[in-house]
């Protein structure tokens, strides 16, 4: 029996196998014969590397999927300025005043509540995309948070012991799964960055959102404004630090939006 595994004949083979595994090990990158630019640093002495030299393989090649045409750029930039002023002179002071009056836990609960009532949007779009896993998680989240989290005021589902993560999706994603292209980039007044597909999606989602049951436009706008104010009050200074860190805030916002809309890698895996 024991000679079945290792005997005189199989021992060299076994040894070769071990060596092969060992040298494929990323811990030993020196052994990688197909060394790329990066591994050169390990082969040559340090002072030979010219850190400020030219680069051979610019990164842009990987960006091709991230370009969305922006023929309306002048208009979009004008809207960006408008939204910027709107934030600066209206939304920010209001949300600051609001944050002063309403304590943080209450604002967090409000955010949870709004997220919870938007459940039909995420649930139905997950179904449209044949993402049964996502739909099931959303259903679970809604059930737990509605019945045990005081009508969604507490997001129990996100706690580590329950661990039902939010399944963000919308009608724009649904259109994407059916092969509809993003279209051009749009920067909408008040609503912010979008694409043609996404804008259509937002309109579609409106009818899935319980807010559409309100029968007065004024009430709908009021509720939406309140939701937005509450959201901003929870992340004070976020927009300011974004602007501070950007050289061209419009481009930064556009690129950020496009990247954000890409499939989430950690969820795919």
């Amino acid at each position, binding site marked *: *029996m*024991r000679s079945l*595994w*290792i005997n005189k004949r199989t021992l060299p083979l*076994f040894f070769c*196998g*071990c060596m092969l*595994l*060992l040298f*494929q*090990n*990323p*811990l030993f*990158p020196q052994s*990688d014969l197909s060394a*790329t630019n*990066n*591994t050169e*640093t*390990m082969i040559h002495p*340090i002072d030979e590397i010219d*850190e*400020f030299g*030219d*680069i051979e393989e*610019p*990164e*842009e090649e990987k*960006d091709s999927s*991230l370009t969305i045409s922006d023929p309306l750029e002048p208009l979009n930039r004008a809207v960006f300025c408008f939204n910027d002023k709107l934030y600066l002179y209206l939304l920010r002071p209001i949300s600051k005043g609001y944050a002063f009056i309403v304590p943080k836990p209450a604002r*967090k609960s409000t*955010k*949870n509540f709004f997220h919870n009532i938007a459940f039909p949007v995420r649930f139905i779009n997950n179904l449209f995309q044949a993402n049964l896993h996502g739909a099931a998680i959303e259903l679970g989240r809604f059930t737990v948070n509605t019945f045990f989290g005081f009508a969604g005021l507490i*997001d129990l589902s*996100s706690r*580590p012991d329950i661990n039902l*993560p939010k399944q963000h999706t919308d009608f724009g994603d649904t259109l994407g799964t059916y092969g509809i292209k993003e279209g051009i980039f749009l920067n909408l007044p008040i609503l912010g960055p979008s694409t043609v597909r996404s804008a259509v999606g937002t309109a579609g989602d409106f009818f899935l959102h319980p807010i559409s049951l309100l029968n007065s436009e004024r009430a709908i706008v009021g509720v939406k404004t309140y939701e937005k104010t509450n959201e901003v009050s*929870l*992340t004070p*200074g*976020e927009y300011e*630090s974004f602007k*501070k*860190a*950007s*050289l*061209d805030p419009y*481009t*930064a916002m*556009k*690129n*950020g939006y496009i*990247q*954000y809309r*890409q499939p*989430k*890698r*950690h969820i795919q895996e």
Partner: protein
Amino acid sequence: MNKKGIFFLLLAYTLFNAPAYGGEPMESVRTHVEKVLTILRDPALKAELAKGVEQKKIQRVYQEMFDEVELSKRALGRHWNTLSREERKEFVPLFRRLLEQAYLDKLLAYSNEKVLFDKEISLSPTIAEVRTRIVSSSQTVFVFYRVIQKKGSWKVYDIIVENISLIQNYRSQFNEILVKNSPSQMLKILKNKVK
């Protein structure tokens, strides 16, 4: 122990050793993030930071943590080659200062939350991604660090916050600026930003 036992032990050793991948990238990121957080959570220093009086301590950690030349190359992309050597040398510290501010602001906003180090993924023998999560009662923010091994240590060359790569974002901005302006004008814009 019989031969079969030894064989399995060896087999297990070779098999399980291969994908283990040292864990060095994650440890490197963890050490630096924790250092930054310790500094940020120090109430005395926090007050000073708010006044912008002293950032030396954090700057030292940054220099250990980030590969500033790699960051700059990737942020400029193909435009890196159009800059003269002197311009490149001027660009690197300026861009580092801009990133310091951006990263500091991000971490300051979350300095009271818990940072979880989930896993590391090997993308090539010298490149890895360290996945972390910032968890608070109201939200979870995914922050991934791309690290590159140079001169034996792992250094950060990109930060991906909620699917948004910081370097890619800056690349789009530098591209926008450099198709309309010369490198020296771009450096002027950058200088005005970080002054």
